[in-house]
């Protein structure tokens, strides 16, 4: 998988940033319409549940961005795995921007990231010694995130917000699949790998 990915690195590097921005703008551009479609006034009490859920998701994105940054700075990641990690981190930044913008459009206040020290402790970074350890941490995070986005969809107030979560869940699932392949692990046999 790594070799396959490596052959596409140049293309991904060249197109990654622009594509992410377009995705984020597309989601953000829908946000006021989402609030109107749901019959809710921005900042109204009816939005509180959605804002809370999106803020939890934003917390996950903050954590993922910092985890990939810690991995990138660790010196343990070798190319092309390092490029893969940075690509995924960039996509999580796209999710962060989209979620924070949507929360703001709904009248909420976006949560801020925790400190590096907090993430080092809560993710047990001290136990990480190898590139494979980092990949497993990322793999676990991406699986959990994909499932989390799928799991909150029924709680959201509108199908449009659920669609936003579905888009992000698909990205997380793609990340998990590539990380699983990079670790040399087989994909599960049963259907419904997520959710």
């Amino acid at each position: 998988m790594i070799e396959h990915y490596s052959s596409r690195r140049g293309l991904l590097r060249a197109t990654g940033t622009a594509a992410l921005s377009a995705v984020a703008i597309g989601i953000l551009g829908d946000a006021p319409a989402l609030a109107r479609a749901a019959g809710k006034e921005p900042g109204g009490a009816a939005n509180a549940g959605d804002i809370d859920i999106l803020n939890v998701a934003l917390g996950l994105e903050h954590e993922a961005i910092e985890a990939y940054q810690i991995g990138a700075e660790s010196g343990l990641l070798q190319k092309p795995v390092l490029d893969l990690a940075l690509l995924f981190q960039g996509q999580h930044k796209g999710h962060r921007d989209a979620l924070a913008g949507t929360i703001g459009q709904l009248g909420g206040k976006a949560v801020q990231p925790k400190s590096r020290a907090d993430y080092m402790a809560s993710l047990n970074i001290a136990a990480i010694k190898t590139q494979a350890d980092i990949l497993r941490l990322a793999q676990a995070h991406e699986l959990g995130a994909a499932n989390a986005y799928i799991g909150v969809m029924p709680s959201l107030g509108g199908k449009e917000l659920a669609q936003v979560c579905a888009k992000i869940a698909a990205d997380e699932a793609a990340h998990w699949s590539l990380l699983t392949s990079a670790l040399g692990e087989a994909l599960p046999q049963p259907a419904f790998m997520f959710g």
Partner: protein
Amino acid sequence: MRWALETAAAAWLAVAATAMAMAPSGDPARGAKLYAANCGSCHSLDANRVGPAHRGVYGRKAGTARGYAYSPGMRGARIVWNEATLDRFLQNPQAMVPGTRMGFRLTDPARRADVIAYLRQQSR
């Protein structure tokens, strides 16, 4: 009067026994995997992350994990976490505790039972 009370008590016990028999019994080993895959992005046993730490959650009053900043809704909830309350919460958290920030639903009863069995095991 006594006959009526005894009959009512017997009926209640029968209903309770039936409900217990129908409830899926959880497997903590399966629950550990499900916990990692479904809860692990926000929670861990020993660290407060996006959500509170879970070791000791079974039998604990809701909203009281040390060092975690709960929503007002969860802080005010008069709930002790056990099989029944966890099962209800995981089905639809915001319906049970209005104002909780958790929106994740675990819809499969068997999976909920496994996760609850794991949380109970880890809380001993």
